[in-house]
């Protein structure tokens, strides 16, 4: 395709900044990228005034800023994380493997991954459902419910754990005792991950072109068909991205599970709590190995989200 012909046309419209569908894949873009294309889908219609970075002198300001940011980021994040991986690599692959496969570490990692997968799946369904009800339904008190969804993000994790233990502890006022059980761990993880899927799906559902559904209806599609063939495919990227975020958060979660899990090795001890124990008993090498395992898992999932996002953007 004639990339060189289409590109100037696109940037002249000012869409190269905000229309990844057109901008990032010029060889897939229609030959005659039209002016009116930018006017349609709301976001793209608003002209971006950002005229590019080229005109800024790359001078002392950039250098000083970049230096500060690099040093800060290195001191706080990069060098410490590097040290964890270094410490873990020092033991060699065999040592690393031994450290994460000790019976208690392996049990904690297994519980964490399985519980997180389960929590991610529940979030996939319930989060989408909650987003649906918040967007498409209306009932008194909906605004308050909408506001409450963010509470798990705002509430300190230890408080979240305490709150759940109060309701589902040994003297549960509703008669449900989940303390020191795996179900208790799952409930704690469900609590802290609640907003992810809701908050990624909700805006997509809000922005979803209602006319698509009306077009499908006038072509003869019933409600279920419209949901399955029109709405769902448009939500899937957001649903999966939210689920992946919920999964990484569940894998990393510590504070909310401390109290409700009771920290019973082989039964309710999740990886982060096990890791905490290893640090407390100065078993740094094993702790570094488990940390590396957790980091790798999270990074793989984040990478998957990124690929997913590109895949979604490509289809516009």
């Amino acid at each position, binding site marked *: 395709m004639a990339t060189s012909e289409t590109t100037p046309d696109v940037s002249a419209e000012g869409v190269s900044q905000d229309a990844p*569908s*057109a901008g990032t894949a010029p060889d*897939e*873009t*229609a030959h*005659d*990228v*039209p*002016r*009116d*294309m930018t*006017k*349609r889908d709301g976001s793209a219609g608003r002209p971006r005034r950002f005229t590019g970075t080229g005109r800024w002198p790359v001078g002392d300001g950039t250098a000083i800023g970049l230096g500060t940011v690099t040093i800060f980021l290195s001191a706080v994040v990069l060098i410490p994380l590097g040290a964890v991986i270094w410490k873990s690599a020092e033991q060699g692959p065999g040592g690393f493997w031994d450290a994460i496969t000790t019976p208690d570490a392996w049990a904690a990692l297994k519980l964490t991954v399985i519980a997180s997968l389960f929590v991610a799946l529940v979030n996939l369904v319930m989060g989408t459902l909650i987003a649906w009800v918040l967007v498409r339904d209306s009932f008194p008190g909906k605004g308050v419910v909408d506001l409450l969804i963010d509470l798990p993000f705002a509430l300190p994790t230890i408080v979240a754990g305490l709150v759940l233990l109060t309701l589902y502890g040994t003297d549960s006022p509703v008669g449900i005792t989940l303390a020191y059980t795996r179900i208790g761990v799952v409930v704690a993880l469900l609590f802290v991950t609640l907003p992810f899927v809701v908050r990624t799906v909700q805006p997509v559902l809000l922005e979803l*072109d209602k*006319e*698509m559904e*009306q*077009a*499908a*209806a*006038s*072509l*003869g*599609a*019933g409600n279920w*068909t419209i949901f399955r*063939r*029109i709405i769902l*495919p*448009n939500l899937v990227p957001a649903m999966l991205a939210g689920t992946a975020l919920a999964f990484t958060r569940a894998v990393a979660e510590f504070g909310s599970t401390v109290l409700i899990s009771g920290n019973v090795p082989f039964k309710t001890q999740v990886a982060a709590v096990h890791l905490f124990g290893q640090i407390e008993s100065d078993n740094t090498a094993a702790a570094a190995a488990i940390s590396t395992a957790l980091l790798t898992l999270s990074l793989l999932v984040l990478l998957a989200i990124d690929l997913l996002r590109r895949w979604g953007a490509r*289809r*516009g």
Partner: protein
Amino acid sequence: MAIEIRGVNKSFGDAAVLRDVSVDVTSGSLTALLGPSGGGKSTLLRVIAGLERPDSGQVVISGRDATRLPPQRRDVGFVFQHYAAFKHMTVFENVAFGLRIRKRPKDEIKKRVGELLDLVHLDQFAERYPAQLSGGQRQRMALARALAVDPEVLLLDEPFGALDAQVRKELRAWLRRLHDEVHVTTVFVTHDQEEAIEVADTIVLLADGVVQQQGAPAEIYDNPASPFVMRFLGPVTEIDGRLIRPHDVEIRTEPGEGTSPAVITRVVRLGFEVRVEFTVRGAEGEQAAWAQLTRETVERIAIEEGAEVHVRPRPAIKHSIQIA
């Protein structure tokens, strides 16, 4: 009759959008619902499609009372202003959607979609996603999608409203040709009188939720039922209490029967056409008006700014309205 609308009323909250609207659409015709924005034309189209339910009144499609039918069962094709393309489907899948819902055999779907894509000149774009198409191409895809299920009537809501002027002109002519080929009863909404006059064989002029006039374009243009209709369909000016088209103003150097004295204030040459502005000294004082003349006429009678002339509506004209 393909569509009969009887006494339809529709309100959104306190605002009455359609008031006792009755319209007939003949089979095989191409009808324009014309009117200013907020006049109720889009609502009327959506009532026909079943996307809005009227508060009272009746909608009959091909002799069948459709008032209570959901959109799925009305057998109408609807084309939205903003295309309503299924973003997650290719062009082929978009057009095939209605046929797949109807569980038609694969071969038939393939053949039918192929024909339609040929018809709308999108045959090379079958595997593209809507995001990779231009606005005009998306609109043609939406049209093919609506035609795929052989609807009784085709409804288009401001089909060219989101397109720029050039593409708009091309698609207009193309829609007219397409209709002559396919002959499906078509109703389209527009606020552009030029578009309605150029494309449609019947115009229904809707304003304030009321049908102001309906008929053939030439008939409405020549015999407007009210000053509003006359103003809406083209430029007007006022001479001696009469509303007339500027091209029906006669400018003379000598007084004659029914002329009023006037002074030329400005002459604007727009190529072949010349816009002449003047002040009429009528019975009720001075009044600004203008005339649309050809360059030839202007040169012949040597009109220039400041000249004293005499003006009157051309004696032969039918369409002027006494308003004072």
